[in-house]
């Protein structure tokens, strides 16, 4: 029985809070939903060479919806949408809008001790492609802080996982290729995101996990840096997650993420402590 409960946990919670980057897929008609709020602010910008420079403070808030549904015992359909995002500097207006919708079809290649999955996830430019944030100090400075990147791109992911039951530990590894296209006259650099996640049941109803991920650019480097669209952005991401189960179906999820220089240098992004808190819901058939 405990083994079944543990398996349910892995399928309902662990993979989803990591954007489906695991070898598990949903069983048929099973559902997972999360509503998440993420926030960061920072003055420490890592430029395209990886050098740190101090800017005015940049702030971003995002409210996102994520869902995963079992189409069959091998196919899952996932969706992620930042439903509201705000961007702004300390001396510019705050602009806001919808983010880019990502849909994902995930297939379980194997479901044994080492479940392996592959997925294809198109990301559509549903977000605001251009949002001019005007200076609050003068009438002429402005900066484009869109809430979407303006391009169609395609993620393909392969992932493998393993449960160490009866030890309440799981581990997952994944690798994703992001085929990026263009916005206006600019071609975006393709990306490779890879990572390893380790999860452990700390005490009753409380799961903790940690992940190290690496985002790197593939192909020619962009001539111009555009951090808000993630073009030329690289980092070694370190994240920690705590999930508290509430009853059979609900949970509270708290996550911390920080881009670092551990394996790949952090470039073209803000060096920030990124926090998120969310409510998760799962339902089995």
């Amino acid at each position: 029985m405990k083994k079944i409960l543990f398996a349910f946990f892995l399928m309902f919670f662990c993979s989803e809070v990591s954007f489906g980057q695991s070898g598990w897929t949903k069983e048929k008609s099973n559902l997972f939903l999360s509503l998440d709020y993420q926030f960061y602010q920072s003055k420490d910008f890592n430029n395209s060479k990886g050098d740190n420079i101090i800017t005015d403070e940049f702030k971003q808030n995002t409210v996102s919806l994520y869902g995963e549904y079992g189409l069959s015992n091998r196919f899952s359909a996932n969706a992620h949408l930042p439903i509201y995002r705000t961007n702004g500097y300390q001396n510019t207006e705050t602009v806001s809008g919808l983010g880019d919708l990502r849909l994902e079809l995930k297939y379980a290649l194997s479901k044994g001790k080492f479940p392996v999955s592959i997925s294809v996830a198109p990301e559509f430019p549903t977000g605001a492609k251009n949002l001019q944030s005007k200076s609050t100090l003068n009438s002429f400075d402005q900066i484009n802080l869109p809430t979407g990147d303006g391009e169609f791109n395609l993620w393909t992911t392969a992932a493998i996982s393993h449960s160490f039951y009866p030890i309440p530990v799981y581990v997952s590894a994944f690798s994703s290729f992001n085929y990026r296209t263009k916005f206006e006259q600019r071609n975006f650099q393709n990306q490779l995101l890879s990572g390893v996640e380790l999860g452990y049941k700390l005490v009753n109803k409380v799961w903790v996990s940690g992940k190290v991920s690496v985002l790197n650019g593939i192909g020619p480097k962009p001539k111009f840096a555009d951090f808000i669209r993630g073009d030329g952005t690289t980092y070694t991401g370190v994240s920690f997650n705590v999930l508290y189960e509430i009853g059979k179906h609900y949970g509270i999820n708290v996550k911390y993420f920080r881009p670092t220089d551990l394996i790949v240098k952090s470039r073209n992004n803000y060096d920030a402590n990124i926090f998120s808190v969310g409510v998760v819901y799962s339902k089995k058939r």
Partner: protein
Amino acid sequence: MKKSLLIILTFALLGFSSCEKEKETITETIDSSKPSGAFTASKTGTLVAQNGTPTAGTVQSGKDASGTWYFKLASNFITELATGTASVYLSTSSTFVASPGSGNPDLQLVGIVKSNGEAFYKLASMPASKFTHVIIWCGSANIPFGNAPLQ
């Protein structure tokens, strides 16, 4: 357990291996009319990039055939405009020293850059001799993109 970890880590390594004040709004009117006749430069500078931007190119101040003063960004001018606009300032040094409370004596706004390449900005008069540098400035992020000494 060891075997399991080994398989997972091998998979992960396959992925890793391919990586390696008080606010006061200032309103400025910019005159971007073109010079009439030939433009004759009196001072010239070459931009040096700052903060990892690709800023480069020639900048000049000078007069047109009718004696009107202009500031010119040459056709080889380039800067970081992926996220918006940048501003061109004449400055008394290579450092942007803002002092809005005292009328910014060390700076003179020349114009706004919205695209790379050649651009002219009409000046009210000959630039004061104290302005020895040009600064390409990103006001939104409060950082310089590049500067050039004028000689």
